[in-house]
């Protein structure tokens, strides 16, 4: 195992161990936070009993849908904007300041338009993720070596074939960064929306447990969300690493 990985495990393990001790000796009272080992046990129980399977399925399917929308529309729009420099110049300031806008504030408006279903939540998650995908797509396309485009031209590829066979594969490491953002923002958007105004999903269950002082549900569900998000990002990170090694960039 590499030293950095070992150090990383030591830091995380040390932090969890410290929390465990602080909870056990009463510095952090159990009403505020149960010990991490208890949270892990409660999570295990939740998984085994399948009590929240429906909520988990709703959250993950909505986040998955928002993610697919954000990535497909974000990449396509990024390619489109990149091909039109005047439009790019017009939109650049908007992209740069987009994340200063509290997207979640639009949630009530979206509920008025779409009703209290899944669509407003998916829209929020999509709105959070799509610009990160667009920006990273543009970033990647800007860095495609000109010589590769000349090579495509010499092979008489048309614009669409050039985009599919040369430009997008060349920009893949940057696209993957956008994809990683989209995963995180999709989960944040869905769970955040479920917190605010919803009748189902993991976010709703966490908020419900919080309002009822039900720590044995709230903390395991928070842990579950963290595990899902970190796992997806780790898998994407490994893919990205493999890609960068193959290209001699790492």
């Amino acid at each position, binding site marked *: 195992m590499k030293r950095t990985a070992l150090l990383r495990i030591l830091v995380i393990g040390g932090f969890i161990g410290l929390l465990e001790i602080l909870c056990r000796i009463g510095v952090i009272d159990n009403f505020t936070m149960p010990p991490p080992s208890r949270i892990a046990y409660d999570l295990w129980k939740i998984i085994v009993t399948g009590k929240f399977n429906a909520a988990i399925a709703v959250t993950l399917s909505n986040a998955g849908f928002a993610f697919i929308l954000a990535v497909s529309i974000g990449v396509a729009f990024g390619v489109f904007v990149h091909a039109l420099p005047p439009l790019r110049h017009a939109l650049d300031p908007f992209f740069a300041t987009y994340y200063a806008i509290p997207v979640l504030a639009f949630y009530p408006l979206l509920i008025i338009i779409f009703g209290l279903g899944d669509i407003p939540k998916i829209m929020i998650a999509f709105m959070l993720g799509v610009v990160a995908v667009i920006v990273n797509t543009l970033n990647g396309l800007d860095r495609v070596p000109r010589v590769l485009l000349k090579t495509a031209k010499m092979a008489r590829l048309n614009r669409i074939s050039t985009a599919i066979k040369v430009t997008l594969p060349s920009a893949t490491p940057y696209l993957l960064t956008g994809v990683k953002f989209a995963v995180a923002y999709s989960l944040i958007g869905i769970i955040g929306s479920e917190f605010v105004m919803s009748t189902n999903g993991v976010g709703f269950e966490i908020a419900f447990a919080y309002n009822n002082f039900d720590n044995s549900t709230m903390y395991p569900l928070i842990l579950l969300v963290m595990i899902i998000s970190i796992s997806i990002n780790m898998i994407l990170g490994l893919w990205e690493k493999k890609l960068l090694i193959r290209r*001699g960039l790492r």
Partner: protein
Amino acid sequence: MSGDAKKPVHVSLRGVTKVFRGADGAQPVHALGPIDLDLLRGEFFAVVGPSGCGKSTLLEVLAGLSEVTEGSVSFEGKAIHGQIMDGVGVVFQEDACFPWMTVFDNIAFGLRQTSLEKTEIDNRVDRALEMMGLLPFAKSYPAQLSGGMRQRVCIARTLVLQPRLILLDEPFGALDQQTRLLMGEELLRLWRETGATIFLITHALDEAAMLADRIGVMSARPGRLLDIVETQWGTDRDSRIVETEEFGKVTALLWQWLRGESMKAISRNGSHI
């Protein structure tokens, strides 16, 4: 300017000029010309000139990657108007390997855009791999290869298309001197085997003198042809000609032409030696 009258003209340039429009109100840049030149079928023609004289622009005009501002270019009697002609291949100075493809897929890239059968594509790529000494690396990725090997991949990718005119833009520019000499020998061998017309851009006088039948000497910008030096080497030449007295004379003649032009280019750019 034309060479050996016995060989037919393969590529013809007449009054070719290239002016780049200035961006955001800047002055236009007269990069090239006027240039008149005939490349003969099957000859090895090299172009030398000071930095920024328009050598690569000239190559892009021949490749059809760039349109001329004035004048005309024809390849096998057909006019080139900024379109890619069938039978023309280019090897660029920069590393043009697709890093996400294996060596095999890189070489097959151009062929896969044609209507050729898969078996024919595989055969051609296998032959190219063998010819370029890349067979053991067919499944490797470019990042696993040295700079010289990556450039051989790019040459192979051009050769499998069986071009009749091969344009090379300082293909060995990033390589060390020993590798350049050996790659030069390989290039001569490929030239003899394929019978293609080769147009080589280089900043290395010795490389031009060793490889070419004729060497066009370009002026500082706007690039014009000052002279065409004929080397008189046999087609079976290799890198050992660098040891001969005639080789020294050719490079000395090239340097005579280029010294003044290089000084002009340096003083224009406001830099010092």
